[in-house]
């Protein structure tokens, strides 16, 4: 038997749903599942809390079977978990009903998506941020034509349920009580990895649209034209927030904009 065949035979015992008869193999069979579950739980702590460990563990194993690790580093293995939760929505609701918990108006897949973006922002490549003073090198009439280069991981996220409020409640609480949220309806936020760590800021729907256009490379004025309710945007405050939190890495004025 070749080493490859031998490893495949060993791997088949790890993959098998039933526990191996050999006590030593049982340890490996257990470890593979426990390690994966632990890594997933570290990436999605608020999802774990909302679901409870028992429901989460069942889901994590089902997810592992469909999305086994493809890397010697377990960190990337959670990338498809939000989509998996979306596909399991009906099962989840049924599972939660059997416990003393409720989803408190939160879409679990959306919450997982927020947590995954946060995990990615924690380790994303970042560039040196610039200060808002960079704007002073341009005349005020040039400002509408400026383009902002944002951090490489800058994203604008939009959800149907108040996942940001719930997630922030979880992070900011000082007791072991469950996180809560009193808000309802859609929420938007921008998120970026910066040299000072990840940053997430909520914004209204119009600002989210504007930021999406800015991130896509439009200048400040053209980005504004893309927004349906531009009057809802507080441009000064939004720009100050982007600069203050290290999201802007350069400002430039291109020849075509200038013209």
């Amino acid at each position, binding site marked *: 038997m070749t080493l490859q065949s*031998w490893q495949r035979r060993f791997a088949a015992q790890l993959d098998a749903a039933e526990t191996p008869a050999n*006590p030593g193999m049982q340890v490996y069979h257990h470890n593979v599942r426990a390690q994966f579950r632990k890594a997933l739980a570290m990436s999605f702590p608020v999802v774990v809390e909302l679901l409870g460990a028992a429901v989460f563990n069942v889901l994590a194993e089902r997810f592992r079977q469909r999305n086994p690790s493809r890397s010697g580093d377990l960190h990337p293995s959670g990338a498809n978990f939000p989509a998996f939760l979306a596909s399991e929505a009906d099962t989840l609701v049924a599972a939660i009903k059997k416990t003393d918990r409720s989803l408190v108006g939160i879409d679990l897949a959306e919450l997982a998506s927020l947590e995954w973006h946060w995990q990615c922002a924690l*380790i994303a490549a970042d560039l040196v941020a610039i200060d808002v003073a960079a704007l002073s090198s341009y005349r005020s009439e040039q400002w509408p034509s400026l383009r902002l280069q944002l951090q490489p991981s800058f994203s604008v996220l939009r959800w149907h349920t108040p996942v940001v409020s719930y997630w922030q409640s979880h992070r900011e609480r000082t007791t072991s009580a469950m996180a809560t949220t009193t808000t309802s309806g859609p929420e938007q936020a921008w998120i970026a990895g910066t040299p000072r760590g990840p940053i997430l800021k909520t914004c209204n729907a119009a600002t989210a649209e504007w930021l999406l256009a800015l991130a896509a490379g439009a200048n400040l004025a053209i980005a504004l034209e893309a927004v349906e309710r531009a009057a809802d945007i507080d441009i000064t405050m939004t720009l100050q927030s982007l600069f203050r939190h290290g999201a802007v890495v350069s400002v430039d004025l291109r020849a075509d904009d200038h013209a």
Partner: protein
Amino acid sequence: MSPKAWLAGSAPRRAGIGLRAAHHGDWIAQRPDVGWFEIHAENYFAEGGLLPDILDTLRRDLPLSIHGVGLGLASTDPLDDSHLRQLARLQDRYQPAVVSEHLCWGAADGIHYNDLLPFPFTETTLTHVAARVQCIQEQLRRPILLENLSSYVTFEESSLGETEFLTELIGRTDCGLLLDLNNLVVNAANHGIDPERYVASLPADAIGEIHLAGHAYDRYGDRTLCLDTHDRLVPDRVWDLYRFTLRQLGAKPTLIEWDAKLPTLPTLAAEAHKADVCIAEIL
């Protein structure tokens, strides 16, 4: 010997501890009096954010050992170039005194099991592992240390003893050995190996680092197995084997490994101090 001497390539003679995320703040604030520190490579593959700054800060004062857990040296799947590139990037940025990996496999047909899986010791596996070690050493432009595993199964296919396998591997590749004494005690409980005899039969010069850790017993099927848990104080049996090993091999850089149910940083530092006392006794 000072940490700087180790950086210059001399043998370190102090104990270190592992850097874990839960202790980042305490490390920066308390700067524990230890000889060096070790990281699990995969936990620091971050390209940005706060982790690189934390490592830069600690690395300015202490020598570093980078310990990989995910390369799958003995896997028959191709070496993961992306993983190896990230390891090389980490090495190039932080200039560690030591880079180590486990003598294990971890993936088959593209599926990774993220565990340290054992394999039979044969001439075939020796040839395979030696080629992979050489490839990694060429890419990292340095010798690496390989850690002996704890295991829960043995294989009738093995035709070589473990120390015979290791000695031959060292001879073929010029790699070193990271001798995990807790793993030997675990394997003694599970398979009846003789840890002292194991240590005595290794080439002393090739051993670049020692690991000490705790273990636990649990029931699996009809057997009680000793598990390599890294979740408690180093037990007396491991300390006894450590003193024996130091007398056999001389002083070696020694790591207190603790990965689960983490204690406070001072508790870890106290374990490292205990290892330093053992080292001082033989100097």
